[in-house]
């Protein structure tokens, strides 16, 4: 009996050691931190009200000055990819543990920690700007925490009428008269979950972002930080569309119609020729 206990202890210890590290002593898993650096070009965005002189002012390709009072976006469906194509999906079907709202006004939201990523050398990251249609149902029972986060009064990342999440929400001002700029994006598709052919109407504003890592992220002894630049200059001056703001597209009632898709393509790519939109890898620190 005593021997058996000893044996069990040894076995347990071995297992414990094993799960912490490989034979060569490196941990089998570690964290990866995603840091979101939100800019106009190379300049970090400072938010500000209409007449706030400290706000970062940007000039679009079409020559319009603009600045933001508020900017938020949803990141979900995160996948880390190794050089050989092996993918590690990070809680991709669980918004509570795999999605976040980046809010420029809240520094704590500018980093998002991915826990217990298997030790490996990752050369690419993929993530979604917005929420996949099959998860975009405001399912409070399955995802109570994300639901609460998105629905909070100071977040307002929900489209109640479409029972879906807002994917991006930007409030700001443009032109010398500080006219209102208000860009809200989100999907309006509706259908029966997992039945593709029932999705007969609406706009799918979800975009998959694919970014090759400039330096491989080596998870193991190190817990890398991947800094992702979100260059909001692309909002009006994107790879897909050069947008001039005016009465017919600067506020939601008009842009939800035709030009929401233009904003979406600029921010998240058009899904074909542009698969990164405003996002690039700024740095990888191992």
């Amino acid at each position, binding site marked *: 009996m005593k021997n058996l206990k000893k044996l069990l202890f040894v076995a347990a210890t071995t297992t414990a050691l094993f799960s912490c590290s490989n034979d060569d002593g490196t941990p089998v898993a570690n964290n990866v931190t995603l840091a979101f650096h939100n800019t106009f070009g190379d300049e970090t965005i400072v938010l500000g009200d209409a007449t706030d002189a400290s706000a970062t002012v940007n000039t679009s390709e079409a020559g319009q000055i603009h600045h933001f009072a508020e900017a938020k976006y949803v990141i979900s469906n995160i996948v880390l990819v190794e050089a050989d194509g092996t993918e590690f999906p990070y809680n991709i079907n669980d918004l509570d543990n795999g999605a976040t709202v980046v809010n420029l006004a809240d520094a704590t939201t500018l980093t998002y920690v991915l826990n217990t990523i298997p030790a490996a050398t990752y050369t690419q990251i993929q993530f979604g700007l917005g929420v996949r249609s099959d998860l975009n149902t*405001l*399912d*409070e*029972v399955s995802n*109570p925490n994300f*639901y609460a986060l998105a*629905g909070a009064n100071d977040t307002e990342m*929900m489209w*109640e*009428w*479409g*029972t879906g999440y807002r994917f991006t929400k930007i409030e700001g001002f443009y032109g010398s008269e500080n006219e209102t700029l*208000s860009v809200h994006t989100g999907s*309006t598709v*509706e*259908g*029966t979950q997992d039945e593709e052919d*029932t999705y*007969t*109407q*609406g*706009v799918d504003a979800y975009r998959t972002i694919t970014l090759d890592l400039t330096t491989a992220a080596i998870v193991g002894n190190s817990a890398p930080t991947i800094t992702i630049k979100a260059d909001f200059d692309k909002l009006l001056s994107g790879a897909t569309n050069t947008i001039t703001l005016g009465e017919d597209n600067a*506020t*939601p*009632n*008009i842009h*939800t*119609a*035709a030009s*929401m*898709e233009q904003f979406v393509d600029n921010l998240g790519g058009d899904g074909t020729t542009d698969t990164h939109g405003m996002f690039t890898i700024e740095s990888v620190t191992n």
Partner: protein
Amino acid sequence: MVKYCMLLAVTITLASCSDTTTEMIPIENPEIGFTIPANFPEPNNAVYNNMPTQYGVELGKQLFFDTRLSTDNSIACASCHIPSNAFADHNAQGIGVEGRVGLRNVPAIQNLAFMNFYNWDGSRLQLENQPLVPIITHEEMDSSILEVISKIDGDDTYTELFRNAFGDDEITPERIYQSIAQYEYTLVSANSTYDAVMRNEGASFTESEANGYATFQQKCASCHSSELFTDQSFRNVGFPINPSVDEAGRARVTGDMNEYMSFRVPSLRNVAYTAPYGSFGQFETLMEVLDYFDTGVIAADNLDPILKNNNNRIALTTQEKEDLLAFMHTLSDESFVTE
């Protein structure tokens, strides 16, 4: 042998009554369906996956009239969808908790089983996906489905209704949505004077009503078609535009500029009970609507071609308007609003 069988039956009955581990005997919950009036179109496909049952409907009705669906327990579905107004109300725009004013006019709830689109912009394609919208909308009930469940959980009436309707007393969002939809599917209206005339049930139109019907067929029925009195299309008819920045009509859903400020053609059944009219209650009376069409509507690139081809108006004489009003009143189903 007979005696033996009986004894056996009695034994089994006794056994099943005294067996404390056995769940309650399942309640019979027959499908009750709903009436499909003559010449009505096929129901929405979703109906066949959620056919009304006796207790499903009873549960849905209980929920429909329950103010606990709103965050401050002040507003039920029926607060805005008032049965005596054909399940619409008399406000220009819906009014929710704390007197908050919604974006649009409250639509009537009738014959929904036969509709392929719900809401003014058709954002929902099946009724089961609709109840969550008012529950969470800030200007309506401003609650959440978990808040609703926490309030009704443990209420004996609901415990029994959920068990009867779904076999056990678990309260889930899906069961709430399904039962409310089941109740709404049963709200079929097809017993107006018009129906009695069409079905040759001994009723007849007055001269004015008959003239109105003739004018209606000539000038209105291309959109307000079929026995539902809507072709379920989305059209920009050049009505005064809702100033809210949230309004884009059907384009809000489809992202198609050709559908900017287009709205679902509303059914005209029970229309006399549902004033005011228009997507945000622009018109106090039906006569105002007719006068507006006659005078001329707002031009737009995507104005409905029928209006565009007629100088942006539907020309109507005073007599035609009076007759049309008389005809529209024959679409009132008294039995529907007094049930």
